[in-house]
């Protein structure tokens, strides 16, 4: 017998950790001690940067992967494999390209063994609900991205799940299409026409979360933890230009940049990151461009992140990456949702190409430990060459193979721009020799 409290809890996650194997053999923790409950009748958003483990958490709830420790329950039962009454919408749509729209929608029902007449009826109803009438016999490749994701929704809704899981469902769509689909979905939800009880969505789009969710959990990265929880009490349909809406978006921006603060508030305090600092690849061209934009009016060295993101047509996640790269190199600082150029950054904006490279090289050596290490090793060795593996192994002591890849790629690209060292991709060797 389940007690009534437990019954109301659709999903109950407590103390869940999840780690993945890392190159060096140890495990990399991506989810650390996460608690989450989902009640009937709410839309919950998991908001966080890429790599914050929010997709992992979603997959744990979907029964696609298991927690390393802690308990994940659906309606009071431990989740072992995809639970009944949970359906998922995928970022990449995940439609079967050889099945028509109708067949794709019927797929989930076939798996449940629903007989063909009932199947057809429910599939047509779902197609109708989601606005796909007339496309029943089309193949996914004949449809636009937005229509494809509608098929994704219809396929999930047709099984009448209690919980609908959405993994960044709008992020592969263009801005206009995504907006239409979001509002359609919210409308159906508030009219109570969706055959579901609750929604859990993963997103890195702050405005999207505020627009749709009743409750937003902000995740911090490395390892993923719930950093904060916000309730959204705004009435539907929400207006993006509403003062309360903007206020919440600004708060969330500030909350999400806050995490980065201990990393580099002041030049002397880079706490314990050293070689193990995972870098996200940002092209040096983009960095230069961003510094120039920041230095020029209207920003004059100081920009509000949501405004900057809007002007540059970037997702919150992308603008964070850029901001953090600049912060790492001490060309700018992130604080409270603002991006502020440092003196070095202002100087950079006014230099010519060669001088920029020089300044970039100085900052790279001074503030990115791996770059300094590579340069030091190359200087010390008589041959002035070193295999990439030498540094990869060291990186993999701290991070997974994927992160080590990304970090090396970043270092190679920045190092080449700064003319600090050369890299031969075929031989996988670093060297000091640039072709003359």
């Amino acid at each position, binding site marked *: 017998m389940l007690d009534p409290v437990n019954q109301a809890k659709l999903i109950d996650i407590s103390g869940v950790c999840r780690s*993945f*194997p890392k190159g060096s053999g140890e495990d990399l923790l991506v989810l650390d001690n996460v608690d989450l409950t989902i009640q009937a009748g709410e839309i919950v958003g998991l908001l966080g940067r890429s790599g914050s483990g929010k997709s992992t958490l979603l*997959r744990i709830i*979907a*029964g*696609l*992967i*298991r927690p390393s420790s802690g308990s994940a329950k659906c309606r009071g039962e431990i989740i072992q*494999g*995809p639970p*009944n009454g*949970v*359906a*998922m919408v*995928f*970022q*990449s*749509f*995940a439609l*079967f*390209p*050889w*099945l028509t729209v109708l067949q794709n929608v019927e*797929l*989930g029902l*076939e*798996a*449940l*063994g629903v007989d*063909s007449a009932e199947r057809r009826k429910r599939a047509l109803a779902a197609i109708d609900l989601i606005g796909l009438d007339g496309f029943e016999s089309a*193949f*996914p*490749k*004949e449809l636009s991205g937005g229509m494809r994701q509608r098929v994704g929704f219809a*396929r999930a809704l047709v*099984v009448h799940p209690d919980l609908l899981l959405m993994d960044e469902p709008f992020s592969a769509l263009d801005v206009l299409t995504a907006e239409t689909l979001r509002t359609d979905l919210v409308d159906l939800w508030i009219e109570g026409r969706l055959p579901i009880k609750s929604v859990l969505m993963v997103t890195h789009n702050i405005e999207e979360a505020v627009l749709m969710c009743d409750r937003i959990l902000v995740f911090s990265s490395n390892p993923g933890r719930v950093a904060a929880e916000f309730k959204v009490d705004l009435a539907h349909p929400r207006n993006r230009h509403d003062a309360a809406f903007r206020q919440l978006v600004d708060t969330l921006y500030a909350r999400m940049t806050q995490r980065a603060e201990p990393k580099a508030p002041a030049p002397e305090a880079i706490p314990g990151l050293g070689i193990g600092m995972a870098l996200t690849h940002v092209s040096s061209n983009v960095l230069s461009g961003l510094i120039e934009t920041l230095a020029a009016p209207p920003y004059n060295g100081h920009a509000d992140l949501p405004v900057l993101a809007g002007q540059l047509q970037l997702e919150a996640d992308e603008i964070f990456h850029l901001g953090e790269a600049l912060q790492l190199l001490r060309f700018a600082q992130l604080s409270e949702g603002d991006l502020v150029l440092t003196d070095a950054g202002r100087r950079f904006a006014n230099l010519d190409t060669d001088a920029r490279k020089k300044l970039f090289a100085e900052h790279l050596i001074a503030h990115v430990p791996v770059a300094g290490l590579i340069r030091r090793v190359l200087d010390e060795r008589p041959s002035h060459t070193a295999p990439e593996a030498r540094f990869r192994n060291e990186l993999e002591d701290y991070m997974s193979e994927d992160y080590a890849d990304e970090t090396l790629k970043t270092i190679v690209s920045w190092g080449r721009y700064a003319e600090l060292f050369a890299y031969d991709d*075929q031989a996988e060797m670093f060297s000091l020799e640039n072709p003359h």
Partner: protein
Amino acid sequence: MTLQDLRVLPAWREALRPNIWDVVALLLVIGAMVLIVYGGEQTTLPLSTLQVAPVSLDPIHLPAYALRTTLRMLLAIVCSTVFTFVYATLAAKSRRAELVLIPLLDILQSVPILGFLTFTVVFFMNLFPGNLLGAELACVFAIFTSQAWNMTFSMYQSMRNVPKDLDEAAASFHLSGWQRFWRLDVPFAMPGLIWNAMMSMSGGWFFVVASEAITVGNTTVTLPGVGSYVALAIEKQYLVAIGYALLTMLLVILAYDQLLFRPIVAWADKFRFETTASGDAPTSWMLDLFRRTRALRALSRPFAAVNRAFSNLHVALPFRFRTEPRYAPPSRLIDALWFLVIALGTATAAWEAYDYLAGWLGLGDVLAAFGYGLITLLRVIVLIALATLIWVPVGVWIGLRPKLAERVQPLAQFLAAFPANLAFPVFVVMIVRFGLNANIWLSPLMILGTQWYILFNVIAGASAFPSDLREAASSFHLKGWRWWTKAVLPGIFPYYITGAITASGGSWNASIVAEVASWGDTHLSSAGLGAYIAKATEAGDFPRVVLGIAVMCILVTLFNRLLWRPLYAFGERRLRLG
């Protein structure tokens, strides 16, 4: 029951009223059925009928022979498909099975198929003593062994590369293992599988000719078919009959292409995994014909329903699907036991083989076989190099002219199916007439059928060469040698390697047929591993057959691992465009 009870719903009556396409399609279907039944009846006759009605060179029998041969190949491709489904699935889904099955497949792929004949003929003949069926099965098996491996590899690779999101969607929508197999794994593997089946079919012709007339020691079985017709024509030195056989083959290959493969390719276009609609889809008049029929389509609806029900069956599969290997860490104890079983099995087999061979053969024999192997290796290398020099420029020239490429492709496909035996007369007569060295001049026979794979692939590579790169090359005045080495050759390299791997593998196999040639009473042979195996087979000398095959396996595997694999990896990593 009155007539009125038989009334069907108006919509159904409309759907059931036949149109002109129905008539054509029905004739085709019935014709195919009659032919299959007729051909099938012939296979269960007692063995003695062969003596009563031996193969005759009269061209009037050729249609019947062609039918028998066609059915054998069809049966073999069906067997290959079933084998592929089971074997590839097992290898892709079970980690422990994979440990054994994939290396085994790698070896099977490099085993000279014609060497198999010796063992399988004896086995199948004993299975149905005194009946033709045994010999038929032996022949089908020989064709099967030439077709199955590359199909299996293709399916295995597809199954391991199912996109992660579809994998998750299948799991999250509770598809059972059986449903998943038919709804996700098979459709995803389909395009690769069909392409490989077509390649296999071309390759199969080579072995049909070799395996319909089998001589193992004292036993000679000649099954009625195009292959034995050719064998007889060679024995009787009857050149006109060779011409008839060639014509028949051409027609059968054409029929296979038009009636079977083209419809399948056109139909399977929907399985191509792509997110955007591509320009021109393959078409087939045959498929269009069946799609335009009305009554036949209406009548086939129940079959579609049955098909759907079949894929929805709740069948428990004997192995667990690995959705997430990390979750349940594999039991080390079972792993250890499994390795022990494999090790013991391998050791036993090795000991058995050694024990058997040691009684008959000494170290000298082994060295001799390796010596012959090296000679054949040299031949393969030289021939591939020559074929490359000739066909790469030709292929590039053709590939850069799309209209021409379209017309040449089917021709190359036919030439790839061309069995070396048919060229015996020309070669033997020339060698004898001009007193040439058989060691050198028989060699081209090895690459006769396989060189086309190089041409095929180079044409494909050149057609796919991006036009912006071509334009860039010409706008920077890249000409002559520089144009080849800087632009075109790197661009087609991955394609060329694919073709060269196929060609070299095929040449090894062909050596068994090509290093010994005969025309009537004239028997020519050149020194080499192929001739070694062929002679041992003819003499019924099993130990030497085993030795020869083993040596060939080792050489082919080493050749692949040390040369082709690294080149292939290099091409995929550095030179793949787009």
